[in-house]
């Protein structure tokens, strides 16, 4: 483990639960060196994030959706992070960073503002798992992990998304909480639904009668107003 990681999780000691929620994959390095023993979630088989407990300073949310497509196709879509703004409403763009292997995620905030988060791949298993985390100096401290698992029979793939973040302090934090992070569970749910729609139907459902009345079009209008 690097000193960078130590610093990153320095304030994280009380959040035993987050390790359970995120699993060893996303926070493997962290968990393996923690002095505090891990309390296993031995009560039942449910995902950790459905527990009735909090995760210290980090908010953790997760969601699973079943998509009738092979996991290789879904993995490939997600692994190209630049695809994600198509389904993630508050993500304006993702572009490669100047540092090899890193990306810069531009997140929308109220008043036409945006916040940038630089991320790196924390772990990936071809066709199975992608985990990412914000690098030091980002305006938000966050991690995410998406897993792809064969669903039974012909049902396709179970896509599981888990996001952990620590709400930032100050003005930026306030704006972000309002824009994005107050209801991350809702956002994650909607984003995954849109991913499912795009992959299964080739389009994202809207009840708008005209193109300028779609949710996306109206949000753009508001931002430009």
């Amino acid at each position, binding site marked *: 483990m690097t000193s960078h990681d130590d610093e990153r999780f320095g304030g994280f000691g009380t959040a035993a639960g987050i390790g359970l929620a995120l699993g060893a994959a996303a926070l493997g390095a962290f968990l393996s060196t923690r002095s505090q023993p891990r309390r296993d979630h031995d009560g039942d088989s449910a995902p950790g994030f459905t527990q009735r407990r909090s995760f210290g300073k980090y908010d953790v949310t997760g969601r699973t959706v079943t998509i009738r497509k092979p996991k290789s196709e879904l993995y490939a879509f997600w692994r190209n992070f630049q695809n994600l703004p198509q389904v993630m409403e508050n993500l304006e763009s993702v572009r490669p960073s100047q540092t090899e292997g890193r990306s810069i995620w531009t997140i929308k905030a109220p008043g036409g503002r945006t916040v940038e988060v630089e991320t790196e791949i924390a772990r990936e298993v071809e066709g199975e798992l992608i985990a990412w985390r914000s690098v030091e100096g980002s305006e938000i401290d966050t991690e995410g992990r998406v897993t792809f698992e064969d669903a039974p029979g012909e049902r396709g793939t179970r896509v599981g998304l888990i996001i952990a973040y620590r709400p930032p302090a100050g003005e930026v934090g306030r704006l972000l909480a309002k824009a994005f992070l107050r209801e991350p569970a809702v956002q994650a749910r909607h984003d995954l639904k849109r991913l*499912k729609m795009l992959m299964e*139907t080739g389009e994202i459902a809207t*009840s*708008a*009668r005209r193109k300028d009345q779609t949710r996306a079009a109206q949000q753009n209008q508001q931002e430009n107003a």
Partner: protein
Amino acid sequence: MRALTWHGTKDVRVETVDDPEIVNPRDAIIKITSTAICGSDLHLYDGVIPGLQPGDILGHENMGEVVEVGPKSTLKKGQRVVVPFTISCGGCFHCQIEQYSACENSNPAEKQDASTALYGQPMAGLFGYSHLTGGYSGGQAEYLRVPFSDVGPIVIPDHLEDDKVLFLSDILPTGWMAAENADIQPDDTVAVWGCGPVGLFAVQSALAMGAAKVIAIDHYPHRLELARKLGAKVINFRETHVLDALMEMSGGIGVDAVIDAVGMEAHGFAFDNMLEVVKQKVGIGADRAHALREALLAVRFGGKVSIPGVYGGLTDKFPTGALMEKGIQLRTGQTHVQKYTKTLLEKIEDGTLDTTFLISHRLPLEQAAEGYKNFKEQQDTWTKVVLKPGMEATA
């Protein structure tokens, strides 16, 4: 274009609104030639369904001519189509197993939360209904945007006029599925509660499926007469003890299958106060829980219960004892319209099914508000109103 818009309780108006346009690749735009007012539209009219917004265009029993297609639509301009009231993508798990009304992709993501809270999982998108089912504009208008137009609409041969096929959009498949859910066998005696459009079509379907005897229960004389003409025995519950009569008419063993079509507005829904709303609004005299309780007592041991009627919320005094002890089969649900349209179109073409008897009134779109009022207030004789945007207004 002109369209019937909702503005509040008993306040619907024909107004000029923006025309629809192709938004997504699989869309088509149809020019409406016929669109019916459904019993469930009356719930919207009465303001008892949540999730409507002023200006929403109603109408989910639609047909018309294709005038524009998106790049991924399989329709062609000029084709005549009937459009199912359920919007279904064709690609999700539920569509693949022909449970179209449970489509996972047709209700926009941000609109799925409310029905998820109510039912555990989200409802599909529906035309011209609540924003809980997507807030899609309906077809009581000159034009309609049809999403997933490669899955839903069924193309109609030119020789079949609108009135013969319009009900493929909703109430005919709903009546058919109600009978199918009752798993009708040739020797069966079947009882149907409610002689609204769905109840009548369930009577017709049960007979077409070979039921030995179908008994229709209502209190409107004209509607009972329609059931009788279809070949049903009838019971007027205002004049007869229904349970006693059914025991006698089934030879003392109970009826083999029961269909609760009291909530004939079978694709609507409401919430925890639905029961009271129905008592007040449907006007069938017996409250809805009473009809279902009665059906559960009337059905024989090992019999079959089909519920096409609306139960959107919660109810109490539900006879769980009869439900369990009698070993019945219970099947319910919104209609998987797309599963039935092809078969039913064939039955219309070969003359097995004729649904035109139901239509009592045809009105120009401009007189839609009048249609709502009369459909609501004169249920005995205004059995079905079809709006024709192309029809000249009368004085």
